């Protein structure tokens, strides 16, 4: 019995396949993070309007900082929403 148990695959290691994340702005330097470009910033906020964390988008810390700054500025001039409520 004990032997059988040991032969099972250990842990959920091969369950998921992770695509390697990369920073979009590092690999393509032509894209500039600008608060006046909500089309770019839209990829980095959730449906609710929250800023997406780095662990999900894969952007590097430098560009995440710039993104945060730009998103906050864009919100301030109504290019991006502060919150998106469900009933709208």
């Amino acid at each position, binding site marked *: 019995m004990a032997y059988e148990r040991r032969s099972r695959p250990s842990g959920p290691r091969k369950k998921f396949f992770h695509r390697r994340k990369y920073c979009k702005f590092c690999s393509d330097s032509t894209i500039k993070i600008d608060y*006046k470009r909500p089309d770019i910033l839209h990829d980095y906020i959730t449906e609710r309007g929250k800023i997406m964390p780095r662990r999900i988008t894969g952007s590097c810390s430098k560009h995440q900082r710039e993104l945060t700054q730009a998103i906050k500025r864009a919100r301030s001039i109504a*290019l991006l929403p502060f919150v998106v409520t469900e009933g709208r």
Partner: protein
Amino acid sequence: MSGLGVRTSEPRGGKALRRYETVVIAQANLPEDDMTGLIERYNSIIADRKGTVVKIDRWGVRKLAYDIRKQTRGAYVIYDFAGTSDVVAELERNLKIDDNVLKYMTVLTDPETTAENIMKEITALAKKETEEKVAASAETAAETPAAAPSAQTGEPAGSSEAPTAVEEK
């Protein structure tokens, strides 16, 4: 006049020439004449305080991401200018009073710049504009592929101000 009095009247940023960008959201339902009048008024406010306007960008009417003063749409105007911090103070004071302005935001794009750099940029912009006009007229006159490359080079520089800030340094 005491030394202290002079000091308090001096702008917070000192005499440094700085580059700013102000986004103004005006009422969307303004008539065309009023809109141009409004743009011209703030242009002159910047000029009066010895600021130099590099570019005025009119985005036109856009849908707002959230309601401002119960308005769902707003007309966007972006001023790209250089000046000392008292220009900004005066501009924002006036924007705050204006009922036609829903919201505004000023962003510092370059904390240190020189008059020469700005003059250079203005002439470059003017040159590009005339080139674009020539290209556009050439396009309409004869639909040749020669006009296409000039339009491509004009596009990335016009869409974002960030590359110009890099060049200054």
